[in-house]
């Protein structure tokens, strides 16, 4: 044995015991909850120092403006709390929720256009409703609430376009910071992200984070559906899931389906065009369960279907144009599948398999 061999006989670090998975996760949770305690303590002190009494809502805003440099997104923005702070009101209109007020937008379809100066222009298909709303600084979040039966689209100041489908909510800053562009989505959106290598675009949902540089893709993450989906048209996206522990990259015409309960997902090949057709006013179906089709229609037209037994065994293929009224759409569906449609009221239908 000589000196060089000496080191071969010393226990390598790889031979030393590791933390078990449970220990590793427990330690991480300790770190994160310790940080949260620290943030709260820090926040309380500054509130006392400025002599301000604030509601939780204001406190959240303060936290962002005091502790994050203005051009950066605050860590761990609590989007779910923001969602809950805006109740699903009885209003059937699209609403833009600003920190100090809400704007109701009439019409079935609407467009919001943000300028670099933080102004938003709102156009609706119901006449020439054009408003220019002066906005606050970049740290302020806007929330767009699109009820069932309505749709909307947003053009952000960086040129990124987003189409928001029925029954969805989106939270985003009035102006993106210089480090990241981050938005939160519940429901379904299609995004055409303007490429910006220095500012990654991150779409957060309750279960996934989707990181992109510049690309077109569709996200469907409704809270009342078990499976969330990301379908990619072009470019590249990386989806982080399972509480940040796992990730997957998608290529064009791939779809990632994620089960937020089981924390598992899978990638499949699809025709991604099918997933964005709603933007252009039609739904293509390929051997899809009739119950799925009806669920989509119910969201789109904001009606309730009472579905009879056996419907889930039926499937259909074809294209439904959504600019038609619902009775016409159901008439087409009746030709494609052996079903009976009974209209109970303007908003409730009973669908059964033909005996």
């Amino acid at each position, binding site marked *: *044995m000589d000196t060089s061999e000496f080191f071969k*006989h*010393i*226990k390598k670090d790889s031979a030393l015991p590791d933390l078990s998975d449970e220990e590793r996760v427990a330690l991480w949770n300790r770190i994160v909850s310790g940080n949260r305690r620290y943030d709260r303590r820090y926040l309380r002190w500054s509130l006392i120092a400025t002599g301000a009494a604030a509601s939780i809502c204001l406190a959240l805003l303060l936290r962002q403006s005091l502790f994050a440099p203005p051009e950066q997104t605050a860590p761990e923005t609590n989007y779910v709390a923001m969602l809950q702070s805006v109740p699903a009101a009885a209003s059937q209109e699209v609403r833009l929720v600003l920190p100090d007020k809400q704007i109701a937008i009439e019409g079935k379809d609407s467009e919001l256009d943000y300028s670099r100066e933080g102004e938003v222009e709102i156009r609706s298909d119901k006449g020439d409703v054009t408003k220019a709303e002066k906005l606050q600084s970049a740290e302020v979040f806007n929330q767009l609430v699109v009820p069932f039966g309505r749709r909307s689209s947003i053009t952000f100041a960086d040129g990124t376009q987003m189409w928001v489908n029925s029954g969805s909510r989106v939270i985003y800053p009035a102006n993106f910071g210089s480090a990241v562009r981050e938005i939160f989505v519940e429901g379904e959106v299609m995004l055409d992200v303007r490429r910006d290598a220095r500012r990654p675009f991150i779409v957060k949902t309750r279960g996934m984070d989707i990181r992109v540089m510049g690309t077109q893709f569709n996200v469907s993450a409704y809270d009342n559906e078990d499976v969330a989906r990301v379908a990619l048209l072009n470019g590249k996206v990386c989806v982080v899931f399972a509480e*940040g522990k796992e990730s997957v990259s998608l290529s064009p015409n791939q779809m990632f389906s994620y089960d937020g309960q089981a924390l598992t997902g899978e990638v499949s090949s699809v025709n991604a065009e099918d997933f964005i057709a709603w933007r252009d006013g039609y739904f293509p179906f390929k051997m899809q369960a009739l119950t799925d089709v009806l669920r989509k229609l119910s969201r789109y037209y904001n009606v309730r279907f009472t579905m009879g037994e056996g419907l889930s065994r039926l499937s259909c293929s074809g294209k439904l144009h959504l600019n038609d009224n619902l009775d016409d759409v159901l008439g087409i569906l009746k030709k494609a599948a052996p079903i009976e449609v009974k209209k109970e009221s303007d908003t409730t239908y009973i669908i059964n398999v033909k005996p």
Partner: protein
Amino acid sequence: MSEEENKAHWSLFLAGNHEAYSWLYNKYVQVLYRYGQHLTSDGEMIKDCIQEVFANLYRSRKSLPTPANVKVYLIVSLKNSLLRRMHRESVYDRNKDAHSGGFLLEPGVEERFIDDESQRAVEEKIVRLLAVLTPRQREIMYYRYIQEMEFEEICSVMELSYQSAQNLIQRSMKRIRESFGRGRSD
């Protein structure tokens, strides 16, 4: 797993990205835990100190620079945290020595030694050689030959000048060679 990727996550973390923070944790927690075992056999203390390292990162993220090497930076942080803790405990508890054994290294079992007898002989020899080295010498040998760190990195972990680090390595190698010599004449 390039250093570029580490730095990209580091700057995302500094910008407030929680996933980048968790990525750094998951990538380095086992490296740090194993490293800690060279300084103490108290696993709970290592875990506490790893928590301290990551908590400090979080608290000072507004003012942190991006280090030249993320792993080395984390190792230095953990080492400082562990030494502080061990020192504190030795003050309050006289039965505990501050950093008693110094830097710990153990003989490793290589698969090719099937023969128990010769394996034990090798292990005994390694233990004897390790005992000849001072804790500082064991530590620098570990960084240089097991972690394969650059000299600059060793200097920052051990708070040595370049020249002192060179000298320490030379003296350690000499010590080992001499002990081999004695071993042969036995």
